[in-house]
């Protein structure tokens, strides 16, 4: 079994190398049959890796503890679902998942584009399969998931495995890694197409049209993966937060930021033929940051709470990353002429300029995070002293960036291309600006004096108004023209240009998430000792400790507290935080007592009892607006899915057309 698995991976490694060689020889040696055999090798790699992954999952489910990986990451007591997810519970399995996803993406990309881009497919395949060879090489020669414990270790039989950390036994954690990987790995496809079109000097913007959907889908996976991670941290890690600016968290955020920037700036290239170099840089940056992200999570390059030990694969990753970086720089810099812009910037107050600033600010934000994340590594190299920087650094830089981004989210979509007149600005932005100011002023008089938060709420109101007005105006005009009810008109409007209105919905979701983040400015937190039957006042709540129970079951020992939560004298919730000590792994797990509400969450952590046994200690958190982060995510998800639905009518944008607020919609072709 394990030999078969290892053999499949080894063959996949050889075949990816073959695919690279055959594609390049096929293209440059003008031997079409070699190029075709390169394509077939891509499919074969997928089959082989599917077999390998299937064998690993089979071993996990049947509990073949002779295999080191199975022994280290599962045990008999685990449910089959978690046995399955143990596939990516450890280093070797994660890398196998990485390879398998890459193989799947490659097979789909080759299958769907093999006729359309015959000319550049060999290069695409070469790029995809070089990466594949790197990863399959790692799991063949360095970290094999099919390593057998018995071999040479003098072990006769292995009765049971060590199990999966209880912290990871949550549904969010079970699907968080594959979601992130789908996002990370997916960024390779647009990158491969972009580089191929650059190297083969494809005329036109073909690669953008082909990869736009890829880019959106992978962006959605990244967004989902990051949000799942936040949700998990919030409900499981019991520290009352969802984001800690940890290197591994940052690693997932950075490619997301560059992917976001890319999704925006490709519009400039599609419609105006501008920012071509920039797009190449962004698509490459997303790819490189995805690899860097994998490096950070998988090799312990930077010490992190996520606790992946120092491992032997660090030098391989670093080499791969640096080589890729150099190749990308060479490819772009030798083809600069090809990437010349077709139009010029005409005004600072224009759609072009809003895109430009959006990109600048996103990239600055990404760079700030990168700097913070790699700071220990950089400083150690420069001064030979280890140093770190912490959350306040990120907040200082990222809060103003977030506010500016929020502002651009409102302005960007409505400002005219080329140049905006004062009149059109007034028509588009007078009402939203007034609404924004009114909201900020209202909250200010209502007793909120946190400047950044007030700005954020004001801007959120501003952006929301611009978006709702767009929907309202469009729907109204369809309603009167086609005499249909308003909801149907709104549906019709969205369907006619899914990309635009789906995009607005995504913006709306992001605004909701930012409102949720802003809530953290008003977090309340106390540590309190409570005796049985004692009541305390915390924030808006009266909290009474009604019971504490200790006990034990097959799986863990526990201490369980019950708290009655009252507001204005009425009981609104019974929270039951708990501490568990798992018997098998001897690891402790704190179960949070959580009451979610739209306005604020009440979050209670039970942290034990005083040595004299008189009182129990609790951490109380009052966390305003957190729910809006999750609501915002669902809106983003919905909006992105709408973007992926083909529009009912196909808009054809003339290259330099003005699609501002004052102009008519572009020509319609049925």
């Amino acid at each position, binding site marked *: 079994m394990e030999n078969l698995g290892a053999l499949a991976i080894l063959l996949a490694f050889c075949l990816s190398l073959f695919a690279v060689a055959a594609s390049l020889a096929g293209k440059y040696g003008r031997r079409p049959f070699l190029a075709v055999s390169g394509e077939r090798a891509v499919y074969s790699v997928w089959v082989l890796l599917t077999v390998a992954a299937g064998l690993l999952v089979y071993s996990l489910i049947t509990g073949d503890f002779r295999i080191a990986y199975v022994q280290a990451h599962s045990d008999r007591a685990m449910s089959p679902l978690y046995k399955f997810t143990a596939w990516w519970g450890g280093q070797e399995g994660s890398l196998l998942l990485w390879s398998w996803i890459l193989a799947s993406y490659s097979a789909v990309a080759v299958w769907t584009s093999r006729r359309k881009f015959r000319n550049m497919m060999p290069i695409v395949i070469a790029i995809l399969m070089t990466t594949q060879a790197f990863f399959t090489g790692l799991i063949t020669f360095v970290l094999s998931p099919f390593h057998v414990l018995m071999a040479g270790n003098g072990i006769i039989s292995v009765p049971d495995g060590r199990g999966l*950390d209880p912290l990871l036994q949550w549904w969010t954690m079970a699907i968080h890694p594959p979601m992130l990987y789908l996002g990370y790995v997916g960024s390779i496809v647009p990158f491969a197409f972009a580089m191929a079109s650059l190297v083969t000097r494809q005329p036109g913007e073909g690669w953008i049209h082909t990869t736009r959907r890829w880019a959106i889908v992978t962006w959605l996976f990244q967004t989902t993966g990051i949000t799942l991670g936040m949700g998990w941290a919030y409900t499981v890690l019991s520290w009352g937060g969802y984001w800690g600016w940890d290197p591994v968290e940052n690693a997932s955020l950075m490619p997301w930021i560059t992917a976001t920037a890319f999704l925006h700036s490709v519009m400039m290239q599609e419609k105006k033929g501008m920012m071509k170099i920039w797009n190449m840089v962004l698509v490459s940056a997303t790819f490189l940051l995805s690899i860097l992200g994998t490096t950070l999570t998988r090799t312990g390059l930077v010490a992190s709470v996520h606790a992946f030990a120092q491992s032997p694969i660090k030098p391989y990753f670093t080499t791969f990353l640096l080589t890729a970086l150099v190749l990308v720089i060479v490819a772009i810099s030798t083809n600069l002429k090809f990437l010349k812009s077709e139009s010029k910037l005409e005004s*600072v107050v224009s759609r072009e300029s809003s895109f430009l600033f959006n990109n600048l*600010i996103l990239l*600055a934000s990404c760079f700030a995070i990168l700097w913070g994340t790699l700071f220990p590594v950089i400083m150690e190299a420069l001064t030979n002293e280890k140093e*770190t920087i912490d959350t306040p650094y990120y907040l200082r830089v990222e809060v103003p960036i977030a506010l500016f981004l929020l502002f651009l989210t409102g302005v960007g979509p409505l400002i005219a291309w080329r140049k905006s007149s004062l009149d059109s600005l007034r028509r588009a932005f007078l009402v939203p600006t007034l609404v924004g100011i009114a909201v900020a002023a209202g909250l200010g008089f209502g007793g909120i004096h946190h400047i950044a938060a007030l700005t954020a709420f004001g801007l959120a109101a501003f952006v929301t108004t611009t978006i709702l007005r767009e929907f309202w105006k469009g729907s109204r005009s369809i309603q009167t023209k086609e005499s249909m009810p308003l909801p149907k008109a709104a549906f019709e409007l969205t369907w006619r240009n899914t990309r635009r209105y789906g995009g607005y919905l995504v913006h709306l979701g992001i605004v909701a998430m930012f409102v949720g983040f802003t809530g953290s400015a008003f977090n309340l937190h106390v540590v309190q000792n409570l005796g049985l039957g004692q009541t305390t006042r915390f924030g808006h709540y009266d909290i009474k400790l009604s019971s504490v129970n*200790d006990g034990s079951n097959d799986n863990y020992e526990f201490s369980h507290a019950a708290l009655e939560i009252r507001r204005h004298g009425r009981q609104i919730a019974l929270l039951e935080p708990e501490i568990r000590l798992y018997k098998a792994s001897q690891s*402790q797990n704190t179960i949070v007592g959580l009451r979610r509400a739209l306005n604020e969450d009440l979050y209670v952590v039970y942290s*034990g009892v005083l*040595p004299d*046994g008189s009182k129990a200690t609790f951490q109380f958190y009052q966390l305003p607006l957190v729910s809006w982060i999750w609501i915002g995510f669902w809106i983003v998800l919905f909006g992105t899915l709408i973007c992926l639905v083909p529009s009912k009518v196909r808009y054809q944008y003339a290259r330099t057309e003005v699609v501002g607020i004052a102009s008519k919609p572009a020509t319609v072709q049925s």
Partner: protein
Amino acid sequence: MKTYAKFGILTVLIVGSLVWLAMGGISETQTYYKTIPELQKMGTQAEGQRLRVGGNVEAGSILKNGSRVTFVLEQGAQHLKVAYNGNDPLPDTFKAGAQALADGHLGPDGVFEANKIQAKCASKYEAKPPQNLTHEASTPSKITEVKVPALASRSGS
């Protein structure tokens, strides 16, 4: 060209102010990472500096008193007494034998006053092959801090 000049100025302004903010953030939170021997070599020089120290939590050294927790970090033969008085609850991964990082400063009495603790469970998630299969019940880190027969026996209000 005037438009491009305007762009240039705006860009410089934005990037400049961000760099300024970042510099402030760095100098405000910059923390030196020291090992326990390095810390002890620094002597009195270390007092008052923002530092991060790492090591393993010594078995049986964790003492909880309300929200104040004291424990001993060890690295080889070197030991360091740490007192944690922070607001946030300790992470679940913090237990005897775990690797822990403490952020804070060295007090004049030689006790490291930490305001933030990060911990990782040494045995999990990592790529290290299992050292010993017969799990010698890794340090009896029962939830001693949690067990309260006195309270448990009279549950109810």
